[in-house]
């Protein structure tokens, strides 16, 4: 059965290590054809890789749960949300890991907005002409 009305591009992968690369690869295909420069394509791949890796490593709940990656293609930027249906977390939990540091350094904006329906939701923005 169809989910709710589709207005977005949504990619769903199992929350398992060997599927993270699939999300990266498909993201790359999108970013490259959206004509981001090569460095920016790699930045976007890396950020999606880090966010999905965190979902696999930190989200509790059934192993076969999904990670949802939502792409919002706007005229001047690409917005990506990575949602894992786990327990969520907030900025204070971040500790001294590298994942979020890297996401923040390669994307123009990274925001964590968790909720009971989504678990962790990491929202990332890459500007068309961003750094």
């Amino acid at each position: 059965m169809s989910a709710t009305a589709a207005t977005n591009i949504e990619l769903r992968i199992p929350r398992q290590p060997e599927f993270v690369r699939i999300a990266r690869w498909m993201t790359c295909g999108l970013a490259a054809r959206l004509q981001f420069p090569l460095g920016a394509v790699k930045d976007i791949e890396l950020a999606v890789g880090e966010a999905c890796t965190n979902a696999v490593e930190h989200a509790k709940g059934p192993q076969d749960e999904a990670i949802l990656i939502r792409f919002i293609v706007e005229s001047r930027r690409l917005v990506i949300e990575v949602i894992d249906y786990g327990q969520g977390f907030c900025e204070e939990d971040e500790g001294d890991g590298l994942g979020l540091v890297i996401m923040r350094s390669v994307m123009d904006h990274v925001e964590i907005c968790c909720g009971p329906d989504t678990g962790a939701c990491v929202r990332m923005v890459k500007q068309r002409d961003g750094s």
Partner: protein
Amino acid sequence: MEIPLRIEARMEGEKVGVLSLSGEIDIATKDQVREAAEKLIAGGARSLLVDLAEVEYMDSSGLGVLKGLRSQLVEAGGKVGIVSPQSYVKKLFERSGLDQVFPIYDDLGAALEEAGR
């Protein structure tokens, strides 16, 4: 279908282990790196050189493994050096501040020379 990561492991002399990696180091392949390194260490390696020339993708999963190996070896007086990372991977070390922690060599020859000292 595809082979995300290929690993070649060998000793250079009695104390230096060299790992040549090609492909992608991520959450699904990082354990292979750790295991290959552990084998070299079990075989006598006190230092490791990790050749990243052919590594097209690496993220914090890979950095985490390298940090873990470094802690282990430094404790025993050894070290972990990074060899020939592609420019984007080199930038990853800088972004995460680990270029201050790992020596990064342009080529294996220079790395081996220094390791031999």
